[in-house]
């Protein structure tokens, strides 16, 4: 009975984490319309189950490598929400000192390596992070997130080959949301089962319902355990969907409203919410309390970002090379 209660508590935590990302991003969209946030803004709305599920399996000293749709990964990884929001604003107290923006969120101490805006460009780097751990004899995992669009790039194939060839402690997580920008998988790939491509390199690969955070967490734990036992890299294809456009400029002419609505029905948050309500662990009052807490946290983050200082122009060329090294 106690185990059951603990399990429900854990599921409530997962729900909170996902909702936190959702509300953060919805606020970002508003701030974008208000021209507080600029540049490209790629929202993760609909895909929260993947980041939150995966992070449950990672230890603090494991490495995370992410894409340009990485707000969810960053928050789930435990980055300071104020620093992430300030980064959106391009402020000096942002997690990348305002130099990166939405697409380049970094946190050295938390081993959060981007925020990388070139599809598949971070995969070779993740291979190298895993190689470093292997050479040092450390039992750590590098977890690399990328979209299914990356499978069309040569670097995807080069990286899978190297990871399997060298038996590296690397977890490759494909977030398959069906569209590379506006191009559906069927239009761009001859083999649409991305996990099959990984199997083609001899890699252990599996698929999971990315809209089910509990399924993602279970799969993540299984993969990380195997990797930490020295069984080589693992490939996890998470089937998911983004409810919004690719970026704020996307008018979504390439897909129907019905399709989006059908996926929203099986969204990771509504699904877990219903499950917890059915189990009697969540009611309307508790949900409202959760919403209030998150709103409060977000308000503080936005106020922090609003008030944060801009980097002085005199520091423009700072941080290109390590100071004092030339």
């Amino acid at each position, binding site marked *: 009975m106690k185990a059951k209660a603990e399990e429900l508590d854990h599921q409530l935590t997962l729900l909170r984490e996902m909702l936190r990302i959702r509300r953060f991003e919805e606020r970002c969209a508003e701030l974008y319309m208000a021209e507080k946030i600029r540049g490209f803004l790629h929202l993760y709305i609909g895909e929260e189950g993947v980041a939150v599920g995966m992070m449950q399996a990672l230890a603090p000293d494991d490495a995370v490598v992410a894409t340009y749709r990485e707000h969810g990964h960053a928050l789930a990884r435990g980055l300071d929400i104020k620093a992430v929001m300030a980064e959106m604003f391009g402020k000096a107290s942002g997690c990348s000192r305002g130099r990166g923006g939405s697409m380049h969120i970094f946190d050295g101490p938390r081993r959060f390596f981007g925020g990388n805006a070139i599809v598949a460009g971070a995969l070779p*780097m993740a291979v*190298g992070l895993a190689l470093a751990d292997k050479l040092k004899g450390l039992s750590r995992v590098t977890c690399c997130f990328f979209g299914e669009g990356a499978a069309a790039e040569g670097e995807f194939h080069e990286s899978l080959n190297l990871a399997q060839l060298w038996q590296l402690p690397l977890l490759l997580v494909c977030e398959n949301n069906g569209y590379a920008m506006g191009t559906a998988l069927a239009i761009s790939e001859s083999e649409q089962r991305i996990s099959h491509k990984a199997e083609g390199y001899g890699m252990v690969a599996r698929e999971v319902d990315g809209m089910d955070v509990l399924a993602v967490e279970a799969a993540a734990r299984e993969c990380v355990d195997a990797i930490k036992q020295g069984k080589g890299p693992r490939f996890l294809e998470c089937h998911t969907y983004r409810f919004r456009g690719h970026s704020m400029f996307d008018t979504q002419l390439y897909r129907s409203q019905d399709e989006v609505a059908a996926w929203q029905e099986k969204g990771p948050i509504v699904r877990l919410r219903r499950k917890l309500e059915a189990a009697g662990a969540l009611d309307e009052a508790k949900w409202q309390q959760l919403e209030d807490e998150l709103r409060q946290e977000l308000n503080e983050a936005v106020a922090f970002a609003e008030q944060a200082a801009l980097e002085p122009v005199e520091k423009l060329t700072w941080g290109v090379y390590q100071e004092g090294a030339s």
Partner: protein
Amino acid sequence: MNGDSISYREAVREAIREAIRNDDRVFLMGEDVGHYGGCYAVTKGLLQEFGEARVRDTPLSESGFVGAGIGAALGGMRPIVEVMTVNFSLLASDQIVNNAATLRHMSGNQVGVPLVIRMATGAGKQLAAQHSHSLENWYAHVPGLKVLAPATLADARYLLAQALADPDPVLIFEHVLLYNETGPLPKAEDCPDMHKALVRRPGSQLSLVTYGGSLPKAMQAAEILAGRGLDVEVIDLRCLRPLDTQTIFTSVKKTKRLLVVDEGWRTGSLAGEICAQVAEHCFWSLDAPPQRLCSQEVPIPYPKHLELAATPQVEQIVAAAAAMLEAR
């Protein structure tokens, strides 16, 4: 090694050997660096000496293994990545330009990439257009990278240690014609700070600025010019980014004439950049317009005579310098 004499190839190998031996974080990775012994035989014997973990053969996937070098550097290692030629490095240019060069700045100075990438560059071995180009100035264009061109045995032997000690990504370009150069075993003090350009031959009438594979040609040209009573100062840039402009300006203000020799194509060349900087900073000291001698605007051809005609040679350097001096 033969007595007190060493070849450029052996000097590079010694540098790598010393680096692997002295630092557990250092490893070498690249195409054919292990079992084959290196495309230019630079890394011969290192696999046998250090084993497969530290001398790592890679598949032919430049972007993959250069990126892996970047990741390994982020992960606390000190990788030396060898790319067979600068032409092949273009397959990895995404990793070099978009990742290695940008991560420090993009991350707000939280993560750096202490990585060394070595590659061969330049023409002269009749390898035709896809193995002979000099694209180091493309990389020298990119903030975040450091670009070195060791032209002497001392630099071949000792620059690598400095590059590895640097917290930022360093690219080392080795000109293919230099590998067989042989001379006395150099001392570490013959290789000062990698960021400094050096006066290889003092002179008073013209500053001949060059780097890498063109340095021996420039030195020969200076000797020939000396025989004609023309006193030329030869400057070896060594570091193409950041440029040690101070050494160049000091020399030009003394000699009042500048000739830059650069195996890159003339249009958009590093030589053009140096001429522009000298024009901006030394204009009132100049007695003649800055000149440059670069490669012809053609992909490097295979036949010997055309390859020679396409790239700067000793006679052309002599002619260009003499024309500037004799027009006085």
